[in-house]
């Protein structure tokens, strides 16, 4: 068991590491004090729930609820009118579930569906972390919602906050065996790195209170102040990079032997998306492939990578606290040496692997075991009934009522109806057709993602989920004009630079700058292994198609066989190549005249 009080790196680490961290510890960020004083994530939450005139919690408790899987938000569309009407902001909570690997039974699905209709805004929002979130749950319904979630044997612990978040596992069922191993590892990591504090049960389920508070042994891995920042883990099975492994703090890539059995894992560290406009010392970064480990060491490696980050991560500036910055500061070698020291063995170099894409394969597939799987495209992950359009919520509920297998949420915000026996397939297909679940979605749309943004996300600078579908209508018309309608190009939009929909590794990345204005990033790799580059800054939404049009025209006539859009733009020199985070902000703009 790890001793969480041992925070400073030992003398064996690189010179100066200890001094730097010591200096940061003297100027801790506000959140560090909140965590420290929270009594293992309790704060004053129980009291706040009893105050009926307000739909909010205090600022400090607002930081703590994240660890319980929720964000305090308000409907920003309604802000202007409410003051006048003598109403407080329209506060409500976003609640995110913890669903390791995104796997749900039909029974669980039905409970989640009912919660969406009873307490949330009538939708389930599939996220890029293979989970669902609810929007619009008001304070007085929080406990009921949590109890219903608990009734489905699920929880929301650590779905947000400075802890290990929901662990992703490859969804696309090509090789069933490697797939199962990936899920097992994801689940094991999720269980092992789960915060142990009783606060969640105590506050939300009226669980028993620990008299005198919990003592220091309650969090053997995290300690009192948890991590400097969020920590995200994924498990991938090549050739699909559907989990976007390079965008995460820690990743495991399945390496198979000649007979398709699991030989071990390549370990990736230091990926992450979030950055801040105008601050060059913040940047997205793709993960490094650090080493290869044996299957039996994987769980220990996960724990140790996290605890080195716990001890070495920057606790003074939250903007520079993710593992990606720790690795930039101390170097991959020093980091690896410390991981090996703590695990107690040296690791082999990474084994070769190859990814082909980071999207989902839509439609039906058949696994090695003869089971069938249907991947449904869900635009921006929003599962709800659209007036005059697809009845996603109802349709999937009807499927859950007859489906004996399971559901899987993908890291691309889509839904997989998994493990369908051959004889059940027709019945499910009929339901898919009846509710329009695969109704019209062109190629670009199926390769698109948008974050939530307005009206609920307090950080949004521009629209995202509500606008991207319209932009895609226009772009698809443009692609059709150039004869590119069937070409797969990834496009992602977010309302701010935090990058929730991972826009920096999309071939077309759009990041909100202000109302109706976006930064346009181009040149990322289709398989998610290379970041894009800022191509045009502060583009009006109405000008986006215009900016892309000549590039698409050039792509159509000048590309080499099978060449991807992002690769093409880099090869022909329209944009500079981003090799990794530190040069993300260099050589920006269009580098070549357009005819």
């Amino acid at each position: 068991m790890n001793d969480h009080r041992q925070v400073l790196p030992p003398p064996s680490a690189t010179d100066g590491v200890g001094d730097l961290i010591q200096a940061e510890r003297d100027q801790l960020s506000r959140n560090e004090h909140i965590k420290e004083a929270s009594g293992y994530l309790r704060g004053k939450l129980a009291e706040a729930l009893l105050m009926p005139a307000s739909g909010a919690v205090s600022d400090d408790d607002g930081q703590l609820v994240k660890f319980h899987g929720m964000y305090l938000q308000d409907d920003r569309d309604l802000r202007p009118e409410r003051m006048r009407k003598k109403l407080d902001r329209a506060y409500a909570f976003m609640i995110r579930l913890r669903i390791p690997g995104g796997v749900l039974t039909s029974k669980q699905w039905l409970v989640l569906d009912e919660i969406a209709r009873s307490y949330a805004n009538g939708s389930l929002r599939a996220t890029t972390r293979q989970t669902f979130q609810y929007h619009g749950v008001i304070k007085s319904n929080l406990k009921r919602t949590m109890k219903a979630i608990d009734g489905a044997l699920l929880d929301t612990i650590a779905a947000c906050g400075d802890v290990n978040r929901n662990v992703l596992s490859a969804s696309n069922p090509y090789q069933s065996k490697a797939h199962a191993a990936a899920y097992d590892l994801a689940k094991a990591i999720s269980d092992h790195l789960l915060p142990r504090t009783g606060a969640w049960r105590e506050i939300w389920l009226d669980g028993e209170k620990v008299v005198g508070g919990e003592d220091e042994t309650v969090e053997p891995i995290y300690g009192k102040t948890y991590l400097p920042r969020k920590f995200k883990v994924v498990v991938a099975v090549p050739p699909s990079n559907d989990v976007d492994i390079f965008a995460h703090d820690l990743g495991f890539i399945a390496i198979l032997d000649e007979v398709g059995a699991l030989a071990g894992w390549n370990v990736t560290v230091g990926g992450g998306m979030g950055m801040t406009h105008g601050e060059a010392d913040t940047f997205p970064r793709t993960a490094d492939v650090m080493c290869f480990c044996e299957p039996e060491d994987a769980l220990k490696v996960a724990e140790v990578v996290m605890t080195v980050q716990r001890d070495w991560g920057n606790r003074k500036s939250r903007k520079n606290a993710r593992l990606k910055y720790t690795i930039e500061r101390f170097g991959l070698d020093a980091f690896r040496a410390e991981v090996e020291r703590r695990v107690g063995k040296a690791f082999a170099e990474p084994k070769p692997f190859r990814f082909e894409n980071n999207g989902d394969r839509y439609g039906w597939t058949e696994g090695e075991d003869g089971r069938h799987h249907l991947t449904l495209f869900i635009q921006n992950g929003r599962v709800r009934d659209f007036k005059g359009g697809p009845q996603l919520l109802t349709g999937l509920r009807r499927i859950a009522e007859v489906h004996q297998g399971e559901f899987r949420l993908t890291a691309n915000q889509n839904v997989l109806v998994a493990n369908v026996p051959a004889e059940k397939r027709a019945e499910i297909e009929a339901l898919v057709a009846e509710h329009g679940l695969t109704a019209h979605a062109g190629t670009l749309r199926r390769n698109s993602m948008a974050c939530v943004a307005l009206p609920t996300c307090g950080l949004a600078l521009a629209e995202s989920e509500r606008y991207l579908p319209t932009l895609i209508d226009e772009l698809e018309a443009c692609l059709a004009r150039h004869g590119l309608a069937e070409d797969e190009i990834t496009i992602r939009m977010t309302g701010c630079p935090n990058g929730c929909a991972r826009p920096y590794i999309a071939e077309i990345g759009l990041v909100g700058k202000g109302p109706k204005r976006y930064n346009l990033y181009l040149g990322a790799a289709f398989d998610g292994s290379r970041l894009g580059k800022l191509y045009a800054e502060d583009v009006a939404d109405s000008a986006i198609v215009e900016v892309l049009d000549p590039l698409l025209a050039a792509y159509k006539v000048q590309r080499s066989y099978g060449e991807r859009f992002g690769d093409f733009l880099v090869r022909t020199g329209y944009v500079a190549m981003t090799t990794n985070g530190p040069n993300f902000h260099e050589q920006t703009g269009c580098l070549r005249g357009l005819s």
Partner: protein
Amino acid sequence: MSTRLLPRHAPFENDALAALDQVLAVASRVQRTWLLDYLTAVSDLPAQGTRDADVSVGEVVEYVNLNSSRSDQTTMHVAVAFPDGAPPYRPGSVLDLIGIDGESVPARVLPVASSRREVVDEVHALMPVRTGDAAIVERLRLGSQVRVRIREDAEFRLPAALGTDVIMIGVEAGVAPYRALTQERRALGAGGRSWLFFGGRRFTHDFLYQLEWQAALADGSLTRMDVAFSHDQPERIGVEDRLFERREELVDWIENGASLSICAAPKSADRAHFGLLKAVADIKACSLEVAVGHVADLASQGRFNQRHP
């Protein structure tokens, strides 16, 4: 204590009040409560429970729907300013809207939602918009000149004594008199405790005067608040459920001399009344019939009152 004690347009001698104000400024809390009770008793306005109270003309200076734009209800907050000071009125009064911009309208009785001691030159009233209100809704607007009569409601007298505790149970626009009473008690620095039960359809969209209740809780002019929103969850929850949940403290307040008041549309008022009876019956371990007797006793002591907005 910074509460303004002197209304600018006092209905009685300013000198006497100024003197009292000075006394109050140095009085202890207990003395203050006593003095203020006395003050309220002596300054009680002449009863105006008749229909022939004076008609006044004022200007609409605030006209806003307090329900959110996503609500299926409309409750207009109407603030009328009078150039020469508002006519005298007490919490619990009603406002008859008689004419708009020189034309008469089918008379509409609105519950007053303000205290003259706090808003001085104005009268605020609530107008829950129902079918049949079209004539008024179409004509009334910011800046309208309105002819109104402000009068007391003979059947609805809110507790005037400031030292007593009050339990106010208001549903939707029925919360109006309690806003008036809370303003009044705040302006006078009331010593007694106050407890508001508010009911509506949805927390987010129908929480009338939400920001003001938050402020009142923060500054102590409201001691406690409980809310019930019927459409926020699958089952219906009303103020009657909250009354029953809080029955122990509720009966404790009553036994300590608290006055009770219910203001709600007939159906909601009946439900709230029944909730109160159940609460009393449960705590006193008596039958509902006996509880009815207890509440009737309160009414005969002037400590229980019920009305429809």
